[in-house]
């Protein structure tokens, strides 16, 4: 297996008396979208700043692309900070050329890319306009273009969706999904659970500077949901709860409303059970009953056992 694109090992940071990050450890596998989740003040931005080498951790290690981060690695990373700005008096193109130059791109290399990108984010007509003439949403798109212009292998986005309208949110989301499709890795922090749920393959939930939950999102949900499924059949008279409980892998079956809740043994695959069931039932609906991320988030943060 390839080494993770990003790895944090027991990273700590204290400001004065306040421990902002208390021993954070996680791995970001290559080619995934990784969500760093947590409530406000959980230490997400501090963690990201340490990933970006903007502030140095008091202790612990940050490994990027499988080794201790070097100066050159930063050029393979695209970073969109939470608090972000642009030079108000510069034109969109000049600004992007400048951001490209800071990542080692020559003007003639970056110009065609800039034209392409502006087209993609619907700003083609705005290239020669000054930043101050753009709306906030447009500025955010320019910032995103500035982040991806040098085609980094790792994108680090701190709250990328705040302040975006639904259309631009979905534009951003599509861009990120496209990025993953091309084998690149994305790390994003957010407290918007719905978006994280749709986007992320892996998550790390931090609260008060500590990791409370980390891993593959699907596995987490299955674990927290207790590997439960809901079943609906065309003819409820067919249902025999005892018969269901005899199916290998099903531990318990209970009726709930017009449906049946099936509790599977922890390592049993739902698909296998479904194949059994269709042998003797007219299955109309069979779906995994996973808690949504919001529930997990609230439960984890409020200290409930996870």
């Amino acid at each position, binding site marked *: 297996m390839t080494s993770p694109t990003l790895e944090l090992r027991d990273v700590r940071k204290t400001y004065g008396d306040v421990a902002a990050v208390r021993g954070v450890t996680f791995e970001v596998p290559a080619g995934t979208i990784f969500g760093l989740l947590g409530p406000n003040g959980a230490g997400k931005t501090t963690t990201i*700043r340490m990933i*970006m080498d*903007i*502030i140095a951790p008091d202790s612990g290690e940050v490994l990027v692309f499988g080794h201790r981060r070097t*100066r050159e690695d*930063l*050029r393979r*990373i695209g*970073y*969109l*900070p*939470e*608090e*972000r*700005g*642009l*030079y*108000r*008096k*510069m034109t969109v193109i000049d600004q992007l050329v*400048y*951001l490209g*130059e*800071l*990542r080692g791109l020559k003007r003639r290399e970056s110009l065609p890319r800039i034209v392409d990108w502006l087209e993609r984010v619907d700003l083609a007509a705005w290239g020669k306009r000054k930043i101050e003439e753009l709306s906030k949403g447009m500025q955010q798109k320019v*910032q995103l273009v*500035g982040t991806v212009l040098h085609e980094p292998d790792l994108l680090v986005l701190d709250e990328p969706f705040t302040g975006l309208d639904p259309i631009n949110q979905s534009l951003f989301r599509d861009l990120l999904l496209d990025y993953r499709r091309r084998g690149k890795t994305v790390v994003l922090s957010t407290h918007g659970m719905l978006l994280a749920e749709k986007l992320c393959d892996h998550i790390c939930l931090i609260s008060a500077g500590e990791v409370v939950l980390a891993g593959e999102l699907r596995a987490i949900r299955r674990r927290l949901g207790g590997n439960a499924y809901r079943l609906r059949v065309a003819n409820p008279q067919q249902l025999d709860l005892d018969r269901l409980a005899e199916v290998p892998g099903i531990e318990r079956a209970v009726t709930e409303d017009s449906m049946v809740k099936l509790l599977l043994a922890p390592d049993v695959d739902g698909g296998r059970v479904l194949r059994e069931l269709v042998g003797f039932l007219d299955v109309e609906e069979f779906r995994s009953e996973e808690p949504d991320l919001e529930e997990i988030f609230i439960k984890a943060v409020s200290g409930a056992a996870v």
Partner: protein
Amino acid sequence: MRPSDAYVVGKREYLVRIKGWGFWVATFGLPLFMAAMMAVPALLMTRGHTAHRLALVDTTGELAGPLRERLASAEREGARVVDFDLRVLPPGPDAAAQRARLDRMALAGEIDAWIWLDEEDLGRGRFEYHSESVSSWLTQEVLQGVVSEVVAAWRLRRAGFDTEKIAELTRGVDLRTVKVSEGGSSAEGGFGGVVLAIFLFTILYAVLILYGTQVMQGVLEEKTSRIVEVMTSAVRPLELMLGKLVGICCVGLTQVAIWIATAVLLTAPGVFALRSILPAGLNVPSFTPGLVLHFLALFLIGFFLFATLYAMVGAATNNMQEAQHLASFAIVFLVAPMFFFMQVINDPDGRLAVVTSMIPFFMPLVMMLRIAVKTPPMWQLAVAYTLAIVTTCGLVWVCARVYRVGILMYGKRPTLAELWRWVRYA
């Protein structure tokens, strides 16, 4: 440290400013403004005033003629700042009535003032000047000088001396200044040297304040608009700061180069345009290559000394108001030499000049004055330059640390103790 990143940052800082209209307004506006400040009051005083209408009653009968002649000859020489339109009135039989009539004329605006010369008063060493306004001190001083001269000649004549002989014998002598330098002695106006010193001093002062403030504004702009967050992922704070300083420094150098080139052209031998508008007898000092080199070196030292202070202020504060308040502490060092620059020019090797030119924060401005007037001893130059350069390097180091922490800190303005902690942190 990646110099290429600092270069990219510096290039942007330079181009953005050079392309802005503000730069060109300052480049051409400031010299015009300075020239106007010097020329306009002089022009207004020499040409803009109306003649002072003066009525004269001379009871001696011997002074009116010489006085009229003296005033006319002074006018011919063109060296006066006040013109008189003299009206001589014969003394009337009733002095009190005549004086009352003269007062009425002054009140009615027919004359500006009247003077009364009689033997008794002059014997006591005085004469009377009556006017609605007695605050025109310049007019009075000129008048007093002319009357004194005429009265003195009159007294001598009455005592039986040959006045022409006396005038010949008591003629004053002019001081002809010759500047002695390594390259040989050259006749040069003493006043010209002072003008040069003040010119260079003022330019240096103006650019240090101008560009120091620009650095502060630049840092603050990046901080308040949160651009710095984007920048810090690609550039180290040290590179960002150095790039900014060097970029803005080059803008200043460009401006100064334009000014100096213009001044060198205008003062070069054979350029008559400037000479013809200057008073005769004033030698225009020329810019020697050594002087230009010193100016550039002092600009560089001064710029990095003050710009780093300004950058630190920008990084440590949250808005322009806070920054300006804190920056006033830096400006004190720049303004202080304004209070003693005349003493330095007058005695460039005096204790005040030597001591202040050794203090790094005063060094660029004070040394500029000293060098323009008289080349200081080699050892003093060496010590002053060394101290200033070492201080500048130290300050850049401290500033880089404050900057690194400060640009990402928002909220309350840090106390001195916190600033010190930032320096130790980084």
